[in-house]
């Protein structure tokens, strides 16, 4: 089973629409924004690294679907959002839940989401988790925070996103909803039904496809006849952009283009972010993945660490000196090889506080198990 899959190296610019691209979102970023974005990349990485280690030590239940090597997608898609915007992250997107809340100054809007403490509480299965740990890991959400609580069923949040945006539109709001999906999930029927509806009603649903080339043990070419999953967009006459998933600013540019287009009432977009899954599908799959994926493929796929790519850019732009860029260097390292010294202290500290919050939190009580099956009537 050898493939000619395009990996991140070929990521380019491609869209099915012919509308002119607006100014690049990156042009509006201040120096502080750049540093904030770097910090968020570190934090996303550190969160994952820390959990991988906890998991190895047997301290966590459930499965960890590492977002290692895919962090630029999360940071880049979220950085430009407004508080009123919605998201629906899935299994590989754990950092998204708190990244939505890390305040940048993009567009002078505050954003909102969950605190890192709440997300840690979820991972550790505590009562302070957003859903009191009734479902695992990424299955959390809260309407008041603009986050759809997903089920396990892949692509299942896209119709919900369409409903959220339809609702907002009726209220005269210009809310955008970003849904996250693996390339494998684009084969689900409901993906088609929902994007079709969003296209008909010009709903600002932006479907982010993290094309990491593998869906569990199934390579792209067995899940999709098109190498560029962005081509799925053509069936609906909506833009299908390809972003370099390793380049946070390319992801930001393309996301914000689609987001602003959506806000302007022009409808949904699909953004394929080319990337590569660093480890196994979940932590339980690391050993097998080492067998079903060639070492070459893995090496090549991990060769453009998003932290390295962004740092290089910052140095070129003169925002960081070479020495500053070198100071904290988790890039290119396996999670197990990194130490806290590889990360900025404030990042380590944010996570530390999150974990502390979780560990200080009580477990849910058995007595609440039959609560909240039904809600009280509206009135």
């Amino acid at each position, binding site marked *: 089973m050898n493939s000619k899959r395009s990996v991140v190296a070929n990521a380019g610019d491609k869209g099915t629409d012919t509308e002119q691209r607006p100014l690049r979102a990156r042009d509006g970023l201040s120096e502080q924004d750049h540093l904030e974005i770097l910090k968020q990349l570190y934090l996303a990485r550190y969160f994952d690294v820390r959990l991988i280690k906890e998991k190895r030590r047997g301290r966590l239940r459930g499965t960890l679907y590492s977002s290692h090597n895919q962090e630029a997608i999360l940071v880049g898609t979220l950085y430009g959002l407004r508080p009123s915007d919605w998201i629906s992250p899935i299994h590989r997107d754990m950092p998204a839940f708190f990244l939505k809340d890390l305040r940048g100054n993009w567009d002078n809007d505050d954003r909102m989401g969950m605190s890192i403490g709440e997300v840690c509480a979820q991972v550790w299965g505590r009562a302070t988790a*957003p*859903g*009191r740990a*009734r*479902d695992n890991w990424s*299955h*959390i*959400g*809260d*309407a*008041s925070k603009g986050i*759809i*609580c997903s*089920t*396990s*069923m892949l692509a*299942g*949040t*896209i*119709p*919900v*996103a*369409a*409903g*959220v*945006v*339809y*609702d*907002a539109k*009726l209220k005269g709001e210009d809310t955008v909803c970003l849904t996250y999906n693996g390339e494998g999930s684009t084969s689900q*029927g*409901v993906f088609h*039904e*929902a994007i*079709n*509806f969003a296209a*008909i009603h010009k709903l600002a649903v932006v479907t982010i496809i993290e094309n990491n080339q593998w869906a569990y043990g199934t390579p792209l070419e067995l899940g999709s006849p098109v190498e560029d999953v962005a081509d799925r967009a053509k069936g609906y006459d909506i833009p299908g952009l390809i972003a370099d998933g390793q380049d946070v600013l390319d992801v930001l540019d393309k996301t914000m283009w689609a987001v602003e287009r959506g806000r302007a009432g022009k409808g949904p977009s699909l953004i394929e972010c080319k990337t590569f899954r660093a480890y196994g599908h979940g932590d339980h799959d690391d050993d097998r993945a080492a067998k079903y994926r060639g070492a070459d493929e893995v090496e090549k796929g991990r060769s453009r660490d998003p932290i390295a790519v962004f740092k290089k850019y910052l140095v070129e732009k003169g925002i960081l000196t070479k020495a500053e860029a070198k100071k904290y260097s988790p890039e290119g390292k396996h999670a197990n090889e990194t130490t806290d010294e590889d990360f900025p202290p404030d990042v380590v500290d944010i996570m530390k506080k999150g974990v502390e919050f979780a560990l200080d939190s009580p477990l849910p009580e058995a007595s*609440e198990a039959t*609560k*909240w*099956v*039904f*809600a*009280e*009537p*509206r*009135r």
Partner: protein
Amino acid sequence: MSAVIAEGTQTVNMLTAIKQALFEEMEREPGMVCIGEDIGILGGAFGVTEGLQDRFGAERVIDAPISEALIVGAAVGMSMRGRPVMAEMQFIDFISCGFDQIVNNAATMHYRTAGKVSLPMVIRGPSGGYGGGGPYHSQQNEAWFAHSPGLRVVCPSTPSDAYGLLKTCLRDNNPCIFYEVKELYRKREIEEQIPGGDYTVPLGKARIAREGSDLTFVTYGNMVYFCLEAAVKLAEEGIEAEIIDLRSLVPLDDEAILNSIKKTNRVIAVNEAPMTCGFAGEILARVNEYAFEYLDAPPARVTRTDTPVPWVKPLELAVLPSVDDIYEAAKRAVNY
């Protein structure tokens, strides 16, 4: 083209009663949205939503693509932000195409968010056999949903119950599957006045469709009328059957069932769905649990055979419950 009927002045059929409830709730809740296939321009396959789009506009009365999963999922998205939604399945049989979104997403959202998110949504659609619809236009598939915790499951049998329960469900904060027996939509004999005022019917309260002392039929939907007919036959022989019309299956009025059995000591559960794991079986299971000591005869059920509903009349009637089936089950119970 108004569906509004002057309060309490005329008798209406079930279809009109449902239409009326929809119009009134759309009026009352300016946020409410309806979504479904052909419900707008056409006014629905059965005309339940006729005039609705003219009155409330295409944004609030959405003609959806033929995409049941989308319809349910979008209803979840809208309702999770507090907007009441009515989602129509053109025939309740097609609900299978949106099944995952219902049982795994809608049903469990409140639970999974530990009460933070509620979904005021009603999925309603025409159901039931005897009309020559064949396997895909005759289903009463309520048991799938009764077995999926987090859903209300409702099936009225009279115009005023349909009216009052639909209102209650639309004002409830939970996803609901609302069965409208299409054979009852235009049934003349059951036309009635809708009580005036802001009439609603509570969930989880059964209705005594007939009082009796010798045995209890527990049923709902079209089977209420089959039981009534059987009861007339039985009465001729001096056997007085009580008929409990459940109206809502989830929540279920266990108390009404128990009270009736305390009096009659015999119970027959009737549903038109297949036997195995159907709701009639559930009634029998519960009766065991809480009314065993009052039983003078084995609780029994009358149901469809475990087959699809065939199209041609003789076959359709052979698999669905008949008045005779019910009558005979009752006789067996009484003669036990």
